[in-house]
């Protein structure tokens, strides 16, 4: 079984995000980037399924500029067999990413598209769902457990009421939640081997994909500064304070 894993290059989760002075976005120049943590989890799950003999080939895909290659090298070090780089500079909106992933999914004849549930840069949480819609495939999002059984996948999801288990026919799109697994540490020999693997570069034109421009960023601002708290001595005082603010 062939699976596709989409991996996105994002600003590293340890970096303190700075807003550009003109409010057009966040500062990304000279800032450490790494693979989106949810995509790492998706990648790890694909590798574990391959180790169990359920998956035969893992193809990592990323979209973006030249530096996206670093993210693909990381995916190859994790255990991806090959990698495809949709090399396009500039902003790539979720719908565009979904179109490109759908085109590659079809071309490769993959059975599962694994993605992170969302990227930590825009937190859009749209690509997996849009790709499933474009491919007219079942989707199981926010997976915390995945079991493959021939032509079906059982996916446990974390929802507000507890755990929900879905059974989806393959091919399908599955997005990974935080507790699906704990990604492995990359080993030095694997990092070195990954450097020697080839990465196929394609463009939107090669895939017959049109870039979407349905979203426009109007302004980026930092979250409001947290106002100073008030200490209350009793529960009654707390209730009164909440009532005064109209919160209860």
């Amino acid at each position, binding site marked *: 079984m062939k699976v596709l894993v989409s991996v996105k290059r994002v600003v590293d989760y340890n970096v303190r995000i700075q807003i550009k002075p003109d409010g057009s976005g966040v500062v990304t120049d000279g800032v450490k980037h790494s693979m989106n943590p949810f995509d790492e989890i998706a990648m790890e799950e694909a590798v574990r399924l391959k180790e169990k003999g359920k998956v035969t080939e893992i193809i990592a895909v990323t979209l973006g500029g030249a530096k996206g290659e*670093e993210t693909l090298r990381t995916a190859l070090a994790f255990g991806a067999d090959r990698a495809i780089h949709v090399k396009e500079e500039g902003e790539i909106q979720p719908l565009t990413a979904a179109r490109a992933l759908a085109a590659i999914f079809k071309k490769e004849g993959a059975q599962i598209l694994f993605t992170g549930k969302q990227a930590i840069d825009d937190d859009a949480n749209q690509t997996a769902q849009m790709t499933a819609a474009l491919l007219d495939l079942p989707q199981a999002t926010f997976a915390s457990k995945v079991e493959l059984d021939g032509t079906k996948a059982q996916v446990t999801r974390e929802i507000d009421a507890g755990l929900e288990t879905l059974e989806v026919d393959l091919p399908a799109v599955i997005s990974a939640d935080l507790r699906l697994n704990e990604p492995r540490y990359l080993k030095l020999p694997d990092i070195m081997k990954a450097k020697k693997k080839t990465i196929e570069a394609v463009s939107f034109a090669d895939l017959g994909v049109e870039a979407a421009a349905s979203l426009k960023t109007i302004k980026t601002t930092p979250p409001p500064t947290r106002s100073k708290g008030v200490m209350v001595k009793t529960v009654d005082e707390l209730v009164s304070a909440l009532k005064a603010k109209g919160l209860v």
Partner: protein
Amino acid sequence: MDFTFKEDHIDFSDSIRKFLMVEAAPEMLREIWETESGRSKALREKLAEQGLTALSVPEEFNGIGLGDLDWILIHQELGYYAIPDSLSDTAYLAAWLLNNLPGDAALKKEWLPKIANGSARIAIAHPVNPMVADAGNADLLLMWHNDEIHAVQRKQVQMTLRTSIDASRRLFDVTWKPSDATRICPASHGASLWQGLLDRAALAAAAHLIGLAQRMLDLGIDYSAQRKQFGKPIGSFQAVKHQLADVAVKIEFAKPVLYRAAYSVMHDKSRRSVNVSHAKLACGEAAWFSARKSIQVHGAMGYTWEADLQMFMKRAWALNAAWGDQSFHKKRIADFIYSSGAALGPGETFT
């Protein structure tokens, strides 16, 4: 000339940092300190799994076959997390020494694969160190004797455990009898090998020291951001934050010196030993400065057993004297600058 690190170096260092962040947490270090051997088989196995033990071993002996520059950022991370394991002695120094021995294919064939897979621990005795680190845990000891190199098994030596200020170290007085049977390299070739080993050992110690300096600075910053006086975090007071800013500056000034030394060792430059001594002094001073300032920021509790800071400070203290103390390295630099025709000045930095 491009002095930036290659992507591989950064990737290796990132990967090791993520690994050590979890596997070498301070509570784990304390547990290992309290064991008799001071070493953890499980940790060594994990280090081997990551490929660290194979880094310097040539590919023909199941290693990765990398060099000094590939190690430098990894040494920094190992220092930052103060791992209680003599990884550098075995995987960096002994691997280099054994691999560069003239002839003696049998010894290489026996020990290099074991170093690569993490199953061997090798201790090194050099006259610059009065005691032998980790001799009690070693499967093989490489001993200096009048510039000859001797290889002895643990059962062939008598050893006495000595206490170290750094509770993660196990230091031994070792007595042994050199013989033709134990000699693996004559003095004619051994002298330059021992010199090369000393430079690599001092370079590794310097890199560990700069990692420790950064760790102690980070601890100082964390503490000063949390501890409050007069209703504010103490880090908001100029008298505190400027002290830590001074430490940051000291560390940043020491790093290029360290990286130049690594470059010098890797390419066997003529001023290799001088560059290494410069690095050992600069990194040692940065670590010591960081320790002093961070203790001041913590107050008296910084020196208590319960505070993690003491673990890193004592490691820095011990490492500062290992593989040549300040006097030793200052003398090497002094000998160079007082030599006739010594090429000094900015134009000579990378000659």
